[in-house]
């Protein structure tokens, strides 16, 4: 079992430089907050979604959009009904009145959220995690941090299977883990205790294994994998950063 969400497809987005995609993701997610304009945010959102379509991974995003639906509906209700600026009633739903001001704010929030999810989707769904990490390490990120990010993706599924075994072991000793809330709370310590100890032991063992394979070497690390040729490298990253700076400047002089 792997925990990467990467979807292998042959597309121009997949072939793009991971750092450029990461830069795009960050810029696209933040800029609509700097420039609080519906049309602008909407255009960025469309851009992010078209990148998903271009990368042939849009379908994989649908479950994530659906998951976020709950949050989005909450936003509409709370802002639409209760926002302090609400004065202009727009429509009624039974006895409840929704106001224009609140709904406008809600729609901006929704656009920003969908945009942010889509922008992250572009990076996560079209980039192999190790490509991204390797690119960042080459950029000067510490290999240790790179390792931690990379290994978390693999260790979490391992941990969840460990939790399953621990749960079985304690249920075998008569511990009820299902049912009433008080039963579940009582079951917490017998479950979490072994999880923590096992993780500590595994971490210690793994750090021995890493140590023995030269992880602490002072020499400059090399990379097995060929320098992959990516599209849209440095100049595009610069361009994105310029856009970001541009947005800030626009905001200041606004």
């Amino acid at each position: 079992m792997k925990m990467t969400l990467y979807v292998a497809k042959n597309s121009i987005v997949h072939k793009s430089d991971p750092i450029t995609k990461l830069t795009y993701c960050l810029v696209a997610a933040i800029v609509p907050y700097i420039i609080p304009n519906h049309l602008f945010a909407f255009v960025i959102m469309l851009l992010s979604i078209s990148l998903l379509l271009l990368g042939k991974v849009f379908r994989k995003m649908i479950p994530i959009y659906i998951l976020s639906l709950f949050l989005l509906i909450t936003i509409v209700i709370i802002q639409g009904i209760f926002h302090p600026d609400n004065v202009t009633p727009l429509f009624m739903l039974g006895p409840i009145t929704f106001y224009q001001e609140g709904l406008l704010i809600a729609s901006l929030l929704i656009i920003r959220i969908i945009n942010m999810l889509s922008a992250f989707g572009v990076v996560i769904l079209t980039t192999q995690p190790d490509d991204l990490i390797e690119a960042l390490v080459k950029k000067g990120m510490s290999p240790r941090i790179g390792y931690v990010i990379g290994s978390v993706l693999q260790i979490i599924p391992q941990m969840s299977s460990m939790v399953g075994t621990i749960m079985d072991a304690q249920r075998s000793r008569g511990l009820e883990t299902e049912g009433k809330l008080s039963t579940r709370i009582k079951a917490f310590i017998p479950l979490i205790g072994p999880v923590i100890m096992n993780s500590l032991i595994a971490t210690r063992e793994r750090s021995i294994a890493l140590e023995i394979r030269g992880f602490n070497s002072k020499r400059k690390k090399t990379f097995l994998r060929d320098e992959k040729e990516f599209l849209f490298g440095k100049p595009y990253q610069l361009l994105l950063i310029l856009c970001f700076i541009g947005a800030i400047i626009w905001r200041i002089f606004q």
Partner: protein
Amino acid sequence: MNEIKTENVSFSYDQKTIVLKDINLTLANKPTAIIGQNGAGKSTLVKLFKGLLKPTEGDIWINGKNTKEFTAAQLASHIGLVFQNPGDQIFKHKVIDEVMFGPLNIGQSREKAYQNSIEALKKVHMEKYKDENPYDLNLSQQKLVTIASILAMDPPIIIFDEPTIGQDDFGKELLKNLIRDLAAEGKLVLTIIHDMDFVAETFERTIVMNQGEVILDGPTREVFAKEDIIKLAKLDLPHVMQMAKVFGIEETVLTVDELITRLQRI
């Protein structure tokens, strides 16, 4: 008389891969070994016995109780399972508290639980460590603590999952005697195990599993007589049998003493 009975039991985690196929077994009081390669379905089978998993098809009865009708925790006083890795259960700071956890869960009084736990620790020669922190013990001692923690619940049926891992010869001897004593007390003991010498010396009945099926089942002596099937399951014959063959003894020989007696006659 304790009994595990399975009827046409099959199990799969998802629709695609069948882990167990049509298992029909009646296990009664003889100490029984379950052997087979990793992935043969041994662990899944004992989890089904324990009620941790429920059969996809068929039924399992533990002393007449259908596992489908009870939670694993409810079955805990009827059937005990010692997990392979002690780290999966230990969480108390004192050995005695760790051992008493199960007995208290199944409703024993504090006095009774304490008494049973001390008895159980004695059986595995660990009573002198009762006030130690289990995390300060080595792996083989921790394993003995987890065995005691199941014994203290006094279930009529006890399952061990790879009890000899990490044990030295002293530990193996201790386990061998323990399994015999438990059987003498009338308990049903099942053990998943890879150590064929230990199987030959300790268990009266042996079940061989391969790719989710029971391919051989019977008295240990008869099971090891079928070398071709043992090989098919990618298992070895016990070392004494390999040695007996060198001396031209074709019948099954299970222990060192038995081989010595046979050879003295020649």
